[in-house]
């Protein structure tokens, strides 16, 4: 059972990781919390669902539609909820409020359009179960895990090998210096939002595919979990978010499997507090201090 539960934890954790990477990318460049990121994730799930319902191109098309929809919404949020505030001086509080507002708007729009109830997500993938020795996985789980791995590798290549990726890292080192060195900071920020939100969208579709139902409120809990993972991994650290996501998923699953399910979130957040006590800057320390 332990091996199977580990596999369950990795499945859950990989979606947490994708959401957390989005948070951490945006925090990295802006040093600001994007509290509507959970809702961006939710929009991705709904867009993916529509793709499955209308065109029936299969899960890959759903992923691409979800990714694009979330990226567009994410960039729109940067233009509407971040940029105007950034221009008027460096308030840390204002974007928090403006993103909470934007998140609520997205929730309400989706509730009006699709209803407040959970919407079933068609299982586009085969229900074939593969027995791999001590664990068994379904076709959809293999798909989800490979998408998560491919996405993370692609992201790694993007930030290390491409001009925009390098500019993004430079901007996250120091926004002013990057601007002085001739980097178009606004474009970089916009691209960062696009990439971060696309990852959220992918996570949304994956959650829909794996758990078969989505709702306009699914982003709330995921948003909180994503933030916790970002803190566990270290603010602004992409690799920290990857490891932190897996860790949180595994801890949650193990607490349900061997302890009490009602205390699942208590264990998850207890872990976060413990890590922050032992390593205040998270597992993968970055230059960003948590007390900022």
């Amino acid at each position: 059972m332990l091996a199977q539960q580990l596999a369950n934890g990795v499945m859950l954790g990989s979606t947490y990781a994708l959401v957390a990477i989005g948070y951490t990318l945006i925090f990295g460049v802006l040093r600001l919390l994007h509290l509507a990121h959970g809702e961006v994730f939710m929009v991705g799930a709904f867009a993916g669902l529509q793709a499955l319902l209308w065109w029936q191109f299969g899960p890959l098309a759903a992923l691409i539609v979800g990714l694009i929809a979330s990226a567009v919404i994410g960039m729109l949020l940067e233009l509407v909820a971040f940029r105007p505030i950034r221009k008027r001086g460096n308030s840390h509080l204002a974007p928090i409020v403006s993103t909470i507002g934007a998140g609520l708007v997205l929730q309400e729009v989706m509730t009006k359009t699709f209803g407040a109830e959970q919407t079933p997500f068609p299982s586009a993938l085969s229900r074939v179960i593969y027995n791999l020795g001590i664990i068994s996985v379904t076709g959809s789980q293999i798909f989800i895990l490979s998408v998560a791995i491919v996405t993370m590798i692609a992201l790694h290549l993007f930030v290390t090998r491409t001009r925009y990726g390098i500019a993004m890292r430079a901007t996250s080192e120091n926004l002013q210096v990057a601007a002085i060195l001739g980097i178009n900071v606004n474009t970089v920020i916009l691209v960062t939002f696009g990439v971060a939100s696309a990852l959220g969208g992918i996570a949304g579709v994956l959650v829909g595919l794996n758990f078969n139902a989505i709702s306009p409120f699914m982003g709330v809990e995921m948003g909180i979990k994503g933030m916790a993972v970002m803190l566990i991994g270290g603010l602004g650290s992409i690799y920290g978010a990857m490891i932190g996501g897996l860790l949180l998923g595994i801890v949650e699953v193990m607490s349900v499997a061997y302890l009490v399910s009602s205390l699942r979130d208590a264990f998850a957040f207890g872990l976060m507090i413990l890590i922050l006590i032992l390593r205040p800057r998270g597992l993968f320390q970055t230059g960003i201090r948590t007390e900022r």
Partner: protein
Amino acid sequence: MFKNWKTGSAVIGLLLAGGVSAVADVSIGILIPSSGKGASYGQQQLNAINMFMEKYSDIGGKAGKLKLVIYDTRGENTEAINLSRKLMDSDQVEAIIGPQFSAEAEVAFPLAVRGETTMITPMAAKAGIATANRPWAFRFALTTENVYRPLLDAWLKKQSTPIKKVVILMDGKDAVSSFDGKTVFPALLKDRGIEVLDTVSFQTGDIDYSAQVTRAKSLNPDGIVVSALYNEAAHTVSELRKQGMNQPIVAGVGVNDPRFIQIGGAATEGVMAASDFFAENPKPAVAAWVKDYEERFKQKPSNASGQMYDTLYLMRECIKKTEVTGADFKADRVKLRDCWANMKDLDAPLMGPTSIDKNGDGTRVPTVLVVKGPNFVVAQ
């Protein structure tokens, strides 16, 4: 005329008095939440009241007409208290049907005992509310225990290989699901000699059920009991099938909603559940009533409307049987109490022969259902 029945939140006392007659009318108080929390229940119940009164307002015999005094509790306990007092003291009704929510019933039932007036709730579900207020309080709805007893018997009988041990998967956050999963199901299973290997819980709103299901799988049960609302139950059932667990599943009352099958899809095939009122019941009396209801109100009747209709019907039967005339409300109240307390297999039009047990709770045979394709059907 019928528009009047539905008016607003305040007093809807309506006389269907057909002019002055020698005999007094029999007045019955009704407490429903037609606005505020649970207004949809109240509206559905008003629909049922309209349909009932159109057909049955004449009592016949020595009594005059049936007169309903309908008040809106807004689902609030204080209103339930005030309006119960009003019905007993100033309106001097013969009996009260309501209130509808368990919390309201808990505060209103003691007043019925003090005011020596029969009070019967059509739908409140919490265990023990009528028991605590003997001999004046009653419940028409089946307690979950009374629903699960025949359900489990039908489920166990249906299996080709006998079920000896089960795992209960339940929602720990939902009050009814958790009570059923922790208390009601285990007791009933124990009576039938079935071992509960483990009770695994999840929380309302969870999306990932893999850990719970893997834990259940490792125990290798013969059958699964799911006690949850339809969303969570559908996810649990999907995950069970996804992890290759093909054991028979029986589910609590929370799954009685078409959305259970919509969300769970093919995984829900064969899941058994039970319901007191079942709108798709092929029984002619039910089918005709449902058709009539749908034509009038352009919606499917719910449990709430069915329960109100049948409670009214049984109340009228009691009035006829005990020859209550409305002349002496104190004497009438005692007669009606005794009629309810001794009710034995009195036929309710929608839900069938109903008895009242020593706890004041209704008992009858619920409809045992099984998922077949995209619908619940009556289990054979």
